[in-house]
């Protein structure tokens, strides 16, 4: 590991919240490009440990590897998160389409989603992400760090892809997921 990657590892180790790349640049006095490279190196090295390097956009954080969740949960005495299938559907729309408005989610699911939005907000799985510059300026929603953590993802790029439609006959295999999830809009 380069000294810069080690320095960043040390900083992320003590950080309780995500650290932005800009902050890392400032702290280490390095160039953004060098920090980017060091983060890549750190991410690769972490694969060999019980930790993972997670990021959401430009914010970075060391998290525990999902494989060892049961041990960490046993140590922390953490409860397992349970969500209804309705809440999961709403969460799926927000996660893959973010930022999304409530109306968009309701249009896709064909039902009122007040309850599921309430549940997801309360569990801090989704959060407000400003407003869409459209009539009525509807609130935009996106997923949170808690979402990534709860689902053991190190970034939104890791969202599972659906390659088959569930039990829809012989022509089941269909590349529905051609492109990855859309990147969050810059606000």
């Amino acid at each position, binding site marked *: 590991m380069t000294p810069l990657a080690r320095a960043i590892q040390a900083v992320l180790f003590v950080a309780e919240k995500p650290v932005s790349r800009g902050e890392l640049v400032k702290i280490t006095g390095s160039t953004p490009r060098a920090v980017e490279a060091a983060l890549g190196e750190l991410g690769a090295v972490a694969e060999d440990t019980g930790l993972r390097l997670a990021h959401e956009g430009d914010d970075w954080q060391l998290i525990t590897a999902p494989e060892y969740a049961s041990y960490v949960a046993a140590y922390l005495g953490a409860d397992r998160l349970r969500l209804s299938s309705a809440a999961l559907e709403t969460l799926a729309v927000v996660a893959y389409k973010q930022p999304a408005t409530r109306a968009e989610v309701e249009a896709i699911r064909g039902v009122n989603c007040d309850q599921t939005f309430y549940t997801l907000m309360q569990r801090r799985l989704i959060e407000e992400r400003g407003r869409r510059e459209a009539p009525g300026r509807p609130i935009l929603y996106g997923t949170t760090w808690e979402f990534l*953590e709860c689902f053991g993802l190190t970034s939104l790029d890791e969202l599972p892809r659906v390659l088959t439609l*569930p039990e829809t006959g012989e022509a089941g295999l*269909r590349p529905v997921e051609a492109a990855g999830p859309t990147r969050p809009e810059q606000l």
Partner: protein
Amino acid sequence: MIGPEPPRVSIEGFEGPLELLLELVEERKLDILTVRLGDLADGYLARVRALAELPAEEVAAFLAVASRLVLLKARSLLPSLEPVAEEDEGASEEELRARLLEYATVRGRASLLGDRLRAGERAFHREGGTVELPPRGGDTSALAAAWAKVLALAARPKEEDLVAPAERYSVEQRTEEIEALVAEHETLSFATLLGERPTLGYAIVTFIALLDLYRRIVIDIDQDELFGEITIRRKAGS
């Protein structure tokens, strides 16, 4: 934005018309891409009839889809039927099929997310308070000096070993004494106030008296370094 919890509506196991429609497609092992949605009209209506208990606005959503299915069925039975000119785009079979496909994708994604959740392979991050940095001046030499003072104190004869008359101190009395001293000298040190061999009770009363004077803004208190000497200074104008 989190208001009171809205009532949850889900009767007969179906949350909405799309879910019911998708369920019908899956039950019959049909393909969303090729199924003639009009063929589902009868099955759909049969299910909707069983949903009589739903609140009116929920029923409306089911009925909107039902009417569309019936229209599609009618068209397939009477191919010569011309589309109504002002018919909006939303009523076409392809639009409904697209919605159904999109919903099926969401369901697939939701079930994958649900699998991940059930597998319990989640991540955790560090939690806890901010790292407590030592107070300024907390260097080892200050600690060593303080320890030396403690050792010197310990070397003295213990209070209980001394045969002394029972002490009685009053904070009020001590406060008056210190106030008089401060009026005379502009600055004093805590050590001076304690005297040569203070007893614990005397030290405590003296300290409380100082705090009281400080509270009344009669004096100012300074301590330059950790465990260092405390300087008592008369407050200007008092």
